[in-house]
């Protein structure tokens, strides 16, 4: 098939170019962008859009909203595995067709929600979800589904898996998902590299590399744009070098912070290591501006082994932190607010986690994290 009428070099400005020709033979995309949700929204939500009046949470996993019109909707929330096969998705559709008028939605944390128009439709829907293995919960002051990333299943830069870590943790946190016994909501996140696509969490489980990248000098010049890699390093530890007669890169290991920023633009900078890529735990991230201002999560534990298939060392520390919070925080205190009240000294005491020099920040702006006062907790 001849795609081009004339070679590119003969093309002159203003003339119908080869691009138009190619597009004439191929289907043009419909650039619809974000589509209107109204046609796919439960009719009750559509009818009362923007006119909701109040809500309550009758039990874990159920929300009851009342509109200005007097119409009411009950929402049943359930956990999913996020990485879903079409059989699971069709099963969820079957449930929506049988119990929820053929509509469903997902939360930002991969929980599924079914809406029904009367209170007596809630129990049969819950029974069906539980029979099919979908835990009902994740509302209010519970531990909701962990937000997670792609990991070994599909990412090109991960040091660990995401779905497996989350499955292991959610098995251990099942009771806390299906009950609402926490002081406030608990959002947990995981990330498989230090970019941290998982985001901020009350508890975050993130990869922390501990050794500089091992460089495959045969490949650097072939696959990497070297100046871009040099520019990517947060500590200017990378410089161009000739190695074995080939243009490559070298790392000043006294400067390297082992962050892995050079790896995505240059895969021969091998940062991932089965032993030295560890897991670290961070606490006190909070997005909401509710009560206290939003906060970034803080390092509390590191050096945990990347131990598939169930990462037991990670689960143990997460549970330790979670139950210290559950036992000690007052109603409505998020993790960061609880620690803000009791102080970090008490946090490390209650959780039994060791406090080390690595907990003290020395990156830019770090003086703001120091205690500039005579206030100490003894």
């Amino acid at each position, binding site marked *: 098939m001849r795609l081009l009428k004339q070679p590119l070099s003969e093309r002159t400005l203003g003339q119908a170019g080869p691009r138009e020709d190619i597009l004439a033979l191929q289907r043009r*995309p419909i650039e*619809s962008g*974000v589509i209107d949700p109204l046609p796919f929204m439960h009719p009750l939500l559509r009818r009362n859009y923007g006119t909701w009046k109040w809500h309550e949470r009758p039990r874990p996993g159920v929300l009851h*909203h009342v509109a200005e019109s007097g119409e009411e909707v009950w929402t049943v929330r359930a956990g999913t595995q996020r990485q879903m*096969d079409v059989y699971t998705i069709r099963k969820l559709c079957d449930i929506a067709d049988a119990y929820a008028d053929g509509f469903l939605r997902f939360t930002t944390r991969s929980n599924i929600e079914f809406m029904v128009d009367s209170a007596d439709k809630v129990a049969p829907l819950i029974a069906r979800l539980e029979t099919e293995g979908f835990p009902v919960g994740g509302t209010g002051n519970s531990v909701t589904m962990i937000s997670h990333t*792609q990991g070994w299943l599909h990412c090109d830069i991960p040091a660990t898996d995401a779905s497996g870590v989350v499955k292991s943790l959610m*098995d251990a946190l099942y009771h806390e998902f299906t009950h609402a016994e926490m002081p406030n909501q608990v959002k947990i996140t995981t990330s498989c590299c*230090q970019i941290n696509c998982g985001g901020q969490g009350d508890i975050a489980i993130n990869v922390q590399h501990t050794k500089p990248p091992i460089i495959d000098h045969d490949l650097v010049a072939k696959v990497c744009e070297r100046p871009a890699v040099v520019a990517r390093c947060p500590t200017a530890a990378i410089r161009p070098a000739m190695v074995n007669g080939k243009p490559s890169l070298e790392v000043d290991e006294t400067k390297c912070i082992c962050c892995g920023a050079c790896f995505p633009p240059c895969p021969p900078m091998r940062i991932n290591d089965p032993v030295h890529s560890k897991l670290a735990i961070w606490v006190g991230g909070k997005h909401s501006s509710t009560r206290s201002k939003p906060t970034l999560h803080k390092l509390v534990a590191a050096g945990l082994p990347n131990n598939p298939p169930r990462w037991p060392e990670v689960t143990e520390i997460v549970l330790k932190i979670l139950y210290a919070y559950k036992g000690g925080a007052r109603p409505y205190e998020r993790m960061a607010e609880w620690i803000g009240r009791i102080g970090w000294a008490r946090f490390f005491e209650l959780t039994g986690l060791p406090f080390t020099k690595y907990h003290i920040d020395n990156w830019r702006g770090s003086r703001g994290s120091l205690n500039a006062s005579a206030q100490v907790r003894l």
Partner: protein
Amino acid sequence: MPKPMPETPLLDELESGPWPSFVSGLKRLAASDDKPYASMMKDLLGQLERSYETRRGYWKGGTVGVSGYGAGVIPRFSEIASEFPESAEFHTLRVIPPAGTHYSTALLRSLCDVWEKHGSGLIALHGQTGDIMLQGCRSEKVQPCFDEVNELGFDLGGAGAGVRSSISCVGAARCEHSCFDEAKAMRLLVNNFLDEMHRPSLPYKFKFKFSGCANDCANAIARSDFAVFGTWRDDIQVDQDEVRAYVALHGRKWTIDNIIRRCPTEALSLNDDDSLEIDNRSCVRCMHCINVMTKALSPGRDRGVCVLIGGKRTLKTGDMLATVVAPFLRLQDDADYEKLLDLAKRVMDFYIENALEHERMGEMIERIGLVNFLAGIEVEVDPNMINHPRTNSYVRTDGWDEEVAKWTARKLAEADAAAQAAAE
């Protein structure tokens, strides 16, 4: 003779326990020998098991796309394709869901049907940025798959140095706290920048997110370059009978400890008759009291948005929360929404012109300073943008009188506008 299922002793351990197992789902797909993807998913399971054994990932990127677009497909080629040839190409199509991730079962079933025909049958609902992720497509199937998905009404999302897909909270669809039409704002802003999404040529990624109130259910503040939060500028609406009913039900001590004392600016006081007194000028619209007393309290009626700019995660200068650039923009009629779009356009233009390669918005602002950024996007300074004024004297202030004159003129104009509005 169908390909045998791979041995996966490590992954098998993730099939036990009460939480739904993604491994069981992968196996269901791999065991579907009547489907075109069964052998692909068998090799995918084999490769994933290998990762669990060696604690290493085996995917690398590449260049795969659809006609007319420079983003939206995430290429994945296996580094151990010789051992697992059927899943050697396992690309993702990032597909934009309906705003608020509402689905009819008919729509979701159609998507599954298309994906079963062209891909692996594995779908993530949803990715961290907000896309439906169709994971596992061979290179030659990417275009036909996109064509059919596109005919269903879906479009591809962003990737690389471009505008990314967005997230909004459930908002107006089912929440009384919603202070604007999140879906409308999201569609207006994101869809205006589809060229920057589909043919990415920005310095780096650009994310919009939309939360209907300060509760930030869309996780906007730490994860988006342009974060839009619903808020209001008049008084909290109070139903005092419902306040008294709440106090009667829960008790005074509970009410004082958990509502009055939890107000971050001490703007609340419980009266002797168990009604609520609110110092609305001190209220920071944090939502706590409204969250707790849902029947008694609601956001005010004069609603709009607060826009924060520059949130991002770690790479490369460290984590940043977005900060206030527009404390309040009324967002009620179409003209108001156009003003929000104008702001987004100015921010985008400035970012394109001034950011360095691979520099996020927040990093650029840190490099050049907020004042220069504000001048560039033609936004006036406001005390709501800061925690406190500067604490060091290292600044040249010989333009002081001119700046004071600007401030005075602005305040006079605002007073005039307020008087005119009151007269009407």
